[in-house]
Structures are given as C-alpha cells and as structure tokens.
C-alpha cells in the first residue's frame, strides 16, 4: 500500500516543476501582452475618441472605432421610418399657441403646409376660418390645425391603429396601415382630417419615394391625412412649416415640459404658461373632453380690421341661432 502511495508523490514533484515553468512563462507572456496593450492605448490620439449625446441626454465618450454610422439607406427604410414616427421624440410635449389678435388671414400658413405635405389646393391640414360667436360679437380669423388632443376621439375609433398618439403629444397617421374607413373623420369634432379621394396630385412626382410617417408624403389614394405638427421639422429641431411661414406673429410653438414657446415670426421665446395666463388662453370646445394641445389667445385688441368681404361667411354659422 505504502509503495503505491510513494510513486505518485515522486511524479507529482516532477510535474510541479513543469507546471511552475508553464505558469512562469504564461505570466511573462500575459504581462507583456497587457503592457503592450496599455502602451498601444496610450499611443492613441485624443482624436480617436469622440463624445456622443444619447437620447436620454447623457454625454458619453466612446472610441470612434466602436461607432457605426447611421447609413442613409436606413432613412429610406419604411419600417425604420414607421418605428421612428411612432416612437416620437422622448421627453418632449409639444404645444402650439395661436394668437387670434394677430391673424389677418394672410394664409401663408395654409400654403406652406399644402406645399410641404403635397396636398390638393382644396384640402387643408390647417384652415383659417372666419368665425363669429353671436350677432353682436365681432368676427375674427381663426387658424385651425389638428388640435393634437390628449384624449383623441380619432385614435379611439381607429380599428387598425393607423392613427396614434405619440409620447411627445403629436397625433399622427400611418397611411401604409390606414384602411380608409373614415371613422376618424366622423369622430373628429374639429373637422381636422381630410381624405385622399382620388390619386394625390403629386403622386407621379413622389413615386418611388419612401413614405415618411412624420411628413405623410407621399400621400396615398384612399387614406386619411391630417396636420402633423410638422413632426419631421421638429425632429430636426426646427419650427413647423406653418409657424415659420406666418408673417404676422400669430403662432407660438414649443415644449410644455420646458414651459417655453417660440414665436415663428419674431423668433422670440416666452414662457408658455405665462403667455396663456397674461392673455386669457383657452382651448376649442373644452366641454368635449378632448384636451387639445393647441391653445388660443382671444382676439382681444385686434391689430387689423376684419375684411368686409368675409363678414357674410363669418355670420353664416350663426344663421339659426
């Protein structure tokens, strides 16, 4: 028994020396590798690293070699655009304020919008209405875009999730999904939605272009279209088409979370809540519980005369009251 036990002990002593050698060489190699690696890292220039801002607003430093460029082709990928269009812009809550005391029916908003979204000239995402509440009260002009309700009736009734509410407050429509039932048109109390009854006027021009949910171009026959708060411009950090086009300072646009809105004409940025407070801001038909994201400032102290030719049209909506 004891002899048998001794044999392996001798063997293991020899083996121990062998192992020691292997470990020693291994350590040497490993150490030099680490040394070489650290040296290599030190040799790298500062220009090999870059700073990136994440969507969560965090500033990070990473190596350039670790990045992959967002290839242009991805922006032409329908699925990518649809997902981006549904996700919206994190951390934002867009609002619009329309100052009725400034609107003199220049309609630059309407034409800018029609051009951007390739609309038929008779159909409008934003429409400047001639309004009058009672016979005794004065008429005024009222631009009416989609109200981007926080409790949108159109979204509730859509059977296929073609129209949806984004985290940044914008209500959009995916015309690759829309079945054209027009229930949303029936449900919208603000008549904000239009339908492509025929082949859209620019369909030939737009052929082959990838559909962008945030621009709703190309327009599609048999689907619904509506004001998008120019979601494509917002992604680029710009003001909506209508807001920028207004020559009269009617529109303020901004972010409720930041409590700031910027006037599209003067580019002046003001506090959103204070603007509403100082000027008696209100929303359209609040009794319907739709909770619009478009606010109006009353036509108090109008800076223009209401045109004579528009008076009849403004009073038409009161004929029976």
């Amino acid at each position: 028994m004891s002899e048998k036990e001794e044999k392996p002990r001798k063997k293991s002593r020899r083996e121990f020396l062998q192992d020691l050698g292997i470990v020693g060489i291994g350590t040497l190699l490993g150490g030099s590798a680490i040394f070489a690696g650290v040296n290599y890292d030190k040799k790298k220039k500062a220009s090999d690293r870059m700073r990136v801002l994440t969507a969560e607003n965090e500033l990070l430093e990473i190596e350039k070699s670790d990045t992959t460029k967002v290839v242009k082709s991805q922006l032409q990928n329908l699925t990518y655009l649809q997902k981006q269009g549904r996700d919206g812009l994190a951390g934002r809550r867009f609002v619009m304020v329309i100052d009725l005391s400034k609107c003199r029916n220049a309609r630059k908003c309407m034409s800018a919008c029609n051009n951007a979204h390739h609309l038929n000239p008779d159909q409008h995402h934003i429409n400047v209405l001639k309004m009058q509440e009672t016979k005794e009260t004065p008429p005024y002009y009222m631009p009416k875009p989609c109200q981007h309700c926080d409790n949108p009736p159109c979204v509730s009734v859509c059977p296929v999730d073609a129209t949806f509410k984004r985290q940044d407050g914008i209500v959009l429509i995916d015309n690759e999904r829309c079945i054209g039932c027009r229930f949303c048109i029936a449900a919208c109390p603000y008549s904000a939605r239009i339908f492509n009854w025929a082949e859209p006027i620019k369909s030939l021009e737009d052929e082959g272009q990838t559909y962008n949910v945030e621009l709703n171009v190309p327009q599609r026959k048999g689907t619904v279209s509506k004001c998008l708060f120019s979601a494509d411009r917002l992604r680029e950090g710009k003001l909506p088409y209508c807001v920028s086009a207004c020559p009269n300072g009617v529109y303020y646009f901004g972010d409720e979370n930041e409590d700031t809105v910027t006037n599209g004409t003067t580019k002046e940025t003001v506090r959103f809540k204070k603007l509403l407070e100082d000027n008696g801001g209100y929303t359209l038909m609040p009794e319907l519980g739709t909770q619009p994201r478009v606010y109006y400032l009353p036509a108090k102290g109008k800076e223009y005369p209401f045109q004579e030719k528009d008076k009849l049209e403004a009073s038409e909506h009161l004929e029976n009251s």
Partner: protein
Amino acid sequence: MSDQLKIDKITTDLLQSIRLNRSFMIWFGFLGISLVVCLGAYVLQLKDGLVVTGLRDYVSWGMYISNFVFFVATSLVGMLMSAVLGLSGQKWAAPLARIAEIIALAFAAVAGLVIVMDMGRPERLLNVFLHGRIQSPILWDVTVVTIYVLISTLFLYIPLIPDLKICYDKLDKLPPFARNIYKLLSLNWTGSPQQEKIIKQSTRVIAIFIIPVALAIHTVTSWLFASTSRVGWDSTIFGPYFVTGAFVAGSAAVIIAMYFYSNNYKLHDYITEKHFDKMGKLLMLVSLIYLYFNLNEYMVPAYKMKKFDAMHIHALFTGSHALMFWLVQMGGLVIPIILMLFKKIRKPLPLMVISVLVLLGAWFKRYIIVVPTQEHPYLPIQNVPLDFKVYTPTLVEILVTIAPFILVLIIITVLSKVIPIIPVHETIEQLEEHK
C-alpha cells in the same frame, strides 16, 4: 288514409317550387346582368378612388354607410320572427320562420360586403385582423356580425335537416348529384325520436342565443355613430332606437317576400290571409314603438334648440333635408301605422304595398340619420369647393349601392329554389298534433 293524402299534398305543394323553370331563368339572368353592371361601377371606384362618389371631407359617410345600417337592420328580423315569436309560443309564425331566416341570412352576409365597398383601401381589409384594436366599435361590429351570420346559418340549417331528407326522398326527378347533396346535408336523418329531440333542443338553444347577438349587432352598429360627439349622433337612445327601427324594416321585408312566395309558388293554403293579418299587426306594433323613439330622438333636442342641435333640427324640419325627412316620417311611418289599423288594409295586396313604402322609408331613414349630421359640424365649413359642403350622390355611387341588393336577391332566389321555403316537416307535425 286521408291523413296520408294530406301529408302527400303538403309535401307536393311545398316541394313544387324546387325546380328550374323559364321564369326563374329570366329573373336570374336579369339579376346577373344587373350585378355585372353594378360591379362595373365598383371597378371604376377601385380604379379612380372614392372620388367617383359624392363623398368629400365633411360628408365622408354617405349612401354606403346608410346602406350598411339598412342591411344590418333588415337582417334582425330573423331573430324577431324565429326566436322571439317562436320562443313565446306564437305558433302562427312558424311557417314564416324560414322566410325570415333566409332574409336575415342574406342581408347579414351581404352587410359585410357593403362595408368593404365603403373602404378607401379594401385590399387592406386583413389589417382589421392583423392590427385590430379592441376599443374601436368597428372591431365589435366585425365580431358580432360574423357571429350573427354563423348563428343565422345554423338557425336556418338545423330545422331544415328533416326537410332535406324529404327532398332527397321525394324529388326523384332531380339528377343524382343533386339528390346526393340533399342526402349528404340531411346527415342521416331518420326521424327517430332521439333525432327529433336533438333538433328541437338545438333549435331552442340557438333561438335563445341569437337574441343577444342580434341585439348586439344593431346596437353596435348604432354606436358607430353614437360613439362620436357629433350633433344628431351623440345620443344615448341610439341602441334601442336602431333596434326597433330594424324590426320595422325586417317585418316589411318579410311581408313583401310572403306576398311573392304565396303568389308565385301557389302557397295560398300555407301563407294565408290570417298570416298577413298577423304580420300587419306586428308591423304596426313595431312601427309604433319606432315612432315613439323618433319622437324622443327629435322632440327633445327640438324643444331646447341648443345652438348646434338647432342647426341640425332646422335642416331636417324645414331646411335642405325637410322633404325627405317628412316623407320618411309620414309616408314611411305615421300613415302606414294609421292605415294598418284597418283590417281591410291588412289583406295581402294592400299590406304588401304598404310594406314597400315602409321599406323604402326605412332606407331613406338611414340616409337621414347618416348624412345631414355631417353637413353641420361644430366648426364652419369654409375655404372648400361647394361640393364639399353639400353631399350629392353620383350615378356610380348609386349603382354600387344597388349591387348588394342584387346580391341579396340572388341569395334569396337561389335558396328558395333549392330548399322548401315553408318548413315541410313542421307543417306535417302540426297536422298530426291537431288530429
């Protein structure tokens, strides 16, 4: 012996309609050609888009949606006649049950197509199943209409099983393949007491089950409108209002069908003056209930005349839709109710004429519910061409609207040529009971 003779007479009488004759061919050819013409109009709509209709951004639901409501409404009569009257022991209605079921099935099955005709993108219909959102009343409608069509098929088929066996036995002049279809569909019916019991029980279960489903299809259809905040649609009584209106349309349709069957198929012994009298009373009753709902629906807002309600009420009572409104209310409801008070009017021919008026009124009533509301939105309609403000149906649209009616007539015609439209087995059974 005399009983056997009677049974033989019943069988021959009720089965004699199952044959193809000249007049059927002419009628069917006429239906076929009309359908092709109407479908041609639909192809035009598919090609050019809904621009071929009078629909525009403000009035975006028109004749097609009115038609859909009308079709769903008319299909409810199956439930009224077969289930409600059947379960409440109204034996007189038993011979009419199959007519009502055929009408119900035809209208319900075609209603699904009507809604597809209104879609801007019919080829994306599958999206409703792929991306369906449960909070949309359209999803509820698709679900209950499908269930109703399935149950109505069963409701027609199960009581028919004994008759199919009779068809197989008696119609020996038919080609063998046709007889084999009858045999196959009769599921080895032998008339054993156990089989009788199964049929009785299952018919009863379906009769009970079909009542809530039928109520659901038209209530949900009414919610397509009532779920919006539009003036004229934003009403809490729309469910029962639509359901009672549905019974009016359906009963009228059954009376018209009864008249043609009793004359063309020589069924005067089975669809008697007594049946017309009873149906006249039923139509009067449901019309009265409907009139009551109309009174509520229009007089309550008309009393208050709130700003937007007033616009709507004015358009209906004295404005652009007044002629149609009063024709529908008086000619399609009030005058028929008064006339049907008289026994003389509840005879086959006058009752059939009245039913045609009621049914026409019922169709235009749906138009009155669907269209005028959209011409008066909360915000004024401005900066658009005139045809956006006023809805005028086009010829193409009218043809496409007629297409589903032709389809319904084709289904009814085919069904009444292949199955006995008066239940043979039940009629014989009743004869034996009276012995």
